[in-house]
């Protein structure tokens, strides 16, 4: 039973993080898949979301600005708004750049965001980061929530304490995972609606042939900025969830570009850029590969250690993560060369009206 519980909780955390990555991949899909904008600063937008959420919702602290102790949902929404505002500023400045230049610029932006988070110690507590970020569902077990409105309306703090002691400690895990999955599904349906809408078709037109779209009277720059903002908003939400999942965020390790930006790119390209279903599939698939490769490498190290006494396990364990990164990088190169369209290639929406044929 204990073992099954362990597996169950492992599966839950896989789903949670997989869902967060699916959100990031969906956000990137709006930018790259829909609009052809090469955003190499995914980690930056996720960081904005996570920090906004953390500063707004944590308990008062002497180490950083706030926390403002606002309701969690306010934190989520403000995280999205903030990521959107930053994306607007960046978009207005950089969106006219060609793909390579935009990639360089967005890498730079992600680095600058990291620098700000690291150096403005009064607000963000610098490299030490913010901890005790309230997690949706689990936050009910914290005293400052159950002794305040609306929870104290139902029962007094003492009653809540007894109640939370009586149920298993992990009760919130399935709820948290489901919340994230539901958010992924909602955003998926919204994006699907968007994809077949005139806006989505216009985005495809702009991506495929910018000059023709401009000649047809479309405002290319404005549409691109819109797509950039929309993607960043979704990434901001993913960042807020990431902050909740980790409960401790700091600028360098948490938002390491190789684990955030690069992995998300691999997910989108593997799943199929331009296809929302592909983005979600790629996110979960690559995340499972990534986490199961941890089990595999750890297993191999154990076997090696039992076979050869002289092998220093600690060094191998330290470096196993890099072998996995190497593997993921090679996987990307393989997919890029053999299946450049991904597992689920992009499908163009049907032409509206009577002739229900696929366009393109």
């Amino acid at each position, binding site marked *: 039973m204990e073992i099954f519980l362990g597996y169950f909780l492992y599966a839950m955390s896989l789903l949670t993080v997989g869902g967060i990555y699916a959100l990031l991949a969906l956000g990137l899909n709006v930018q790259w898949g829909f609009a052809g904008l090469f955003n190499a600063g995914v980690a930056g937008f996720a960081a904005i979301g996570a920090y906004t959420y953390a500063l707004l919702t944590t308990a008062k602290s002497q180490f950083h600005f706030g926390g403002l102790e606002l309701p969690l949902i306010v934190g989520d929404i403000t995280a999205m708004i903030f990521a959107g505002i930053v994306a607007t500023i960046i978009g207005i400045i950089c969106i006219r750049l060609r793909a*390579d*230049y935009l990639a360089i610029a967005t890498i730079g932006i992600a680095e600058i965001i990291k620098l700000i988070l690291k150096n403005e110690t009064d607000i963000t507590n610098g490299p030490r980061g913010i901890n005790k970020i309230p997690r949706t569902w689990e936050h009910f077990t914290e005293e400052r929530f159950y002794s305040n409105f609306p929870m104290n309306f139902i029962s007094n703090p003492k009653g809540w304490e007894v109640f939370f002691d009586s149920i298993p400690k992990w009760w919130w895990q399935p709820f948290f995972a489901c919340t994230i999955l539901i958010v992924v599904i909602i955003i998926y349906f919204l994006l699907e609606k968007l994809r077949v809408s005139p806006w989505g078709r216009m985005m495809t037109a702009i991506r495929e042939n910018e000059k023709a779209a401009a000649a047809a009277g479309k405002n290319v720059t404005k549409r691109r900025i819109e797509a950039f903002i929309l993607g960043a908003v979704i990434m901001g939400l993913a960042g807020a969830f990431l902050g909740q999942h980790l409960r401790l965020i700091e600028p360098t390790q948490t938002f390491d570009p190789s684990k955030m930006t690069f992995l998300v790119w691999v997910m989108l390209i593997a799943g199929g850029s331009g296809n929302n279903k592909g983005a979600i599939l790629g996110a979960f698939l690559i995340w499972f590969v990534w986490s199961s490769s941890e089990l595999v490498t750890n297993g191999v190290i154990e076997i090696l250690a039992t076979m050869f006494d002289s092998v220093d396990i600690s060094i191998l364990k330290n*470096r196993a993560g890099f072998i996995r*990164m190497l593997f993921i990088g*090679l996987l*990307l190169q393989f997919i890029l060369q053999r299946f450049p369209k991904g597992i689920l290639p992009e499908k163009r929406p049907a032409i509206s009206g009577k002739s229900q044929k696929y366009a393109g």
Partner: protein
Amino acid sequence: MWESFWFEFINFYFIPGLVLGCIYALGAIGITLTFGILRFANFAHGEIMMTSSYLTWEFVLVASSFGLILHPIIGAIPASICAIILALIVDRLFYKPFRNSPTIMIVIASFGMMLIIRSMVQVIWGPNQITFVKGIAKPNSIIKDFTSSIDIMLLIPNKHIFILLGTIIIMLIFNYLLSSTKIGKGMRAVSDNPNLAEVSGINVENIVKATWVVGGFCAAAAGVFLAMDTQFIESTMGFRMLLPMFAAAILGGIGRPFGAVAGGLIIGLAEELSAYPWLGDGPVISPGYKSGVAFSIMVVMLIFRPSGLFRGRVF
């Protein structure tokens, strides 16, 4: 009297800025060449720099186990050969298949290479910082004595002399290569117009290989100089250099190697001088934001003059 302002300014801001600029310049040459000739932004360039500094460290270490105490510059010779081979292998395996695809594919591939090379280095040498050269670099006593006798005391450590001289020598060789040899003329031709170059009988594939050789060599030199300057090596050093190097290449104009050098020197000086207390007591820009300077210059350049200072290519 050599005023205290000039003493401080030249020794602690200008010379380090110049040295940093030389390193950026060498790195930016490779980036601007690949950008001009192969038409894509090579994100893996910083990693080649980083790898060559690790290789240099390894060669020096191996030599010392045989009792030979090598200067890092000697160790850099085999390391730069390895870096060139690495660049050629990467091109053959991962970039060549995309030569006729949309450029963005090759950009993504180089983005992936960045991670592959870095994780390879981390697997082999571990993720931690390694001391490259031990000890505090003392100013060169000959220059110090001579300059203080004529009242302008210059404090230049030996490592900085090596870097400045090394860069000048590499630049002279590079200048000769580009202006006087067949391969250099071919490189300039392909950079200007690849189709025209091909129909006039230039073997573009050979030019591409030559580009990687030159770019790889300059990257190796930049990596070793950087390691000599900071005295430590770490696996993220290449990534940290990437943005200033791109900024230098864009500032000088894409496809203009000498523009990249000018850009590198400007960016290096701007980064160091931004920490100088021009107004009041504190530094103008807090040292924590130093790496933001290069980025701001790059963005301003991209918006107002995308062709760069020397009228480079605009994509």
